[in-house]
């Protein structure tokens, strides 16, 4: 699972520009499903027959990652950009990035600290003060390599730190990796697998694909914010690395199905994996669009706890990925029987 995650995380696919991720996934799952199609927005919808048919279950994750879009090429050859998805400018300033599908090397610069006033040094940076520098010395030179509308990506390696993993795009290639693994197994029930686009700009892809599939149940696989870091105590941690899959009762977009919520904890206990809930109503994911699509879908999200989401350095615990997968695999065999 770890090597699959690594391969997926290192592919670049900002919202609206997911085709490289989709092609890689199609290559991996084409021999493991009975139907496969791409919908008009670009989401990949797969159907795999199981040993029997139960209620209609859709397992899904999103392919897109947060990143940047080039808005303007400046006269000095630098590139103005905007964020795609929610990104803290502090994790962008001073970072290496790749621009466009050709992966042009760039770096995000800003005014030198020496030239900032005392107040400016203590003020968080803003995207408006940053440009991407690809080394071009004029607009004309830059235009040979980049066009407005090209995307840019965090350039960050996949690194094992003790038992933990650091990478960009773990949100939500972790979900994609679990889905691919599940599709490669023999399943007890017929299952739809949907790899969605455009989650990060407002749950855009999942509403359309959920309408097309029209499932009875949806199981959303995600990575969710863990704040178990230095100086944060109690409930403010939200969830913790090493404490297993995160199953939330409610976030900013969804009140989750109570029966599915209980089923997740009961199942985790039965199969002997840890499981935790979020100690705060925070965040949101594709469940928000899915559970109110069509006539309504009974929905649950199971997430890998992840520090520093939406940064070049998302950090997860390897064991959480395994235990989340174990729980998801078991739930896929139980939910269609409800």
């Amino acid at each position, binding site marked *: 699972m770890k090597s699959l995650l690594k391969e997926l995380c290192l592919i670049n696919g900002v919202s609206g520009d997911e085709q490289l991720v989709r092609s890689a996934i199609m290559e991996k799952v084409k021999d493991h499903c009975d139907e496969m199609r791409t919908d008009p927005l670009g989401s990949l919808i797969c159907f795999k027959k199981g040993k029997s048919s139960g209620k209609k279950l859709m397992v899904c994750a999103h392919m897109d990652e947060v990143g940047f879009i080039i808005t303007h090429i*400046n006269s*000095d050859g*630098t590139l103005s950009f905007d964020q795609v998805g*929610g990104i*803290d400018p*502090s*994790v962008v*300033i*001073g*970072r*290496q990035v790749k621009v466009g599908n050709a992966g*042009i*090397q*760039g*770096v*995000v*610069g*800003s*005014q*030198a*600290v*020496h*030239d900032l006033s005392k107040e400016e*040094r203590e*003020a*968080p*940076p803003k995207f408006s*003060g*940053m*440009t991407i*520098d*690809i*080394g*071009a*010395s004029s607009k004309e*030179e830059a235009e040979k*390599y980049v066009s407005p509308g090209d995307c840019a990506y965090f350039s960050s390696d996949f*690194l*094992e*730190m*003790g038992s*933990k993993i*650091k990478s960009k795009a773990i949100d939500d290639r972790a979900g994609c990796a679990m889905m691919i693994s599940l599709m490669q197994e023999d399943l007890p029930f017929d299952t739809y697998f949907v790899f969605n686009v455009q989650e990060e700009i407002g749950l855009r892809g999942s509403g359309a694909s959920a309408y097309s599939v029209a499932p009875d149940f949806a199981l959303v696989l995600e990575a969710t*914010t863990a*704040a*178990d*870091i*230095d*100086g*944060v105590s109690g409930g*403010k941690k*939200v969830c913790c690395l090493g404490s297993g899959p995160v199953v939330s009762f409610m976030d900013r977009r969804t009140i989750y199905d109570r029966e599915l919520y209980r089923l997740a904890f009961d199942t985790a206990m039965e199969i002997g994996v840890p499981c935790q809930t979020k100690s*705060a109503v*925070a965040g949101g994911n594709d469940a928000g669009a899915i559970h109110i699509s069509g006539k309504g879908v009974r929905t649950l999200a199971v997430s890998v706890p992840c*520090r*520093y989401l939406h*940064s*070049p*350095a998302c*950090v997860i615990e390897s064991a959480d990925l395994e235990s989340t997968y174990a729980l998801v695999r078991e739930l896929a065999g139980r939910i269609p029987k409800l």
Partner: protein
Amino acid sequence: MELLGTITELAQAFGPSGCEDAAGELAKSMLEEYCSEVYISNNNVIGRFGERREGLPDLVLDAHIDQIGMIVTGISEEGFVKVDSLGGIDRRLLPTQQVVIFGKRQIPGVFSTLPPHLAQGGNKVMTFAEAAIDTGLSKEELEELVSPGDCVKFDVELKRLLGERVTCGALDDRCGVACILYALELLKGEDLGYNVTVIFSSQEEVGERGAKVGAFELAPDIAIAVDVSFAMNTGEDPKKCGELGKGPMIGVSPSLSRRISQELIACAKNAQIPFQYEVMNGMTGTNADRYSVEKGGAETCTVSIPLRNMHTPAEVIDLRDVRLSAQLLAEFIKEGRK
């Protein structure tokens, strides 16, 4: 010598102020290509170039070998590494920045950051008291590997941008070190106008302390500090900046020798080396300030390589400026005192 390779090795070497050992040893081995007698004293790497000739003035070429970094102050209860700064760090870019800690072995890590729900409106830049490095290791594992006083640097690889531009951390002032080495390459076998000593000095970033004792030890007649200065970039004031690719910035300042400044400018003009003025109104903030007043004083000047995003892991230089600066130094040294 191959300039890009030399700069890459130097810029990726470890050497925060006070822990210059690895970068110093590397620079020493490089300097030994040109100097018969090279030694390290107070972490200053010192070499005599060419034969000593009676009656010639003593000239020192100085570039600092240290880089900005951090020093470990402790390990927190939660298993995060606490640090303070070595030199002027732009704290705005710390969140999720990748670092390497030089403990009993090299330990990778990332600065942790609060997620949005805890960031209290996000209107504050983290202090070093709040900053903490996430290594993925437990408190117990860390206590075996990391001790207070161990040094930390930003972990970044040198990358090529378009043309001859490159980005990395620590180009301040490893590109100055490379520039001096390249000047020696140009001077091999040439008749010199000075008795030349090279010093790659320690602890510049914490207040030019290596140069203070180096200047006492060497007591030259003339000293040239080869350092970096501000290159024009988004948000910078063009009146205070040089430009990338337009050649060395020759210092002119009340604290520098006006005669040396003028000789350097004349040299550049004669040899048709493009150059830029760097006019200051007092101290230069470089090692030149130390040589000027150590012992009985010396005539000093600065030759600066323009650099963007100073003191960040995203520094950018143009290799042409390093080559042109080296040519200028070589011409000046061949010319000698009239």
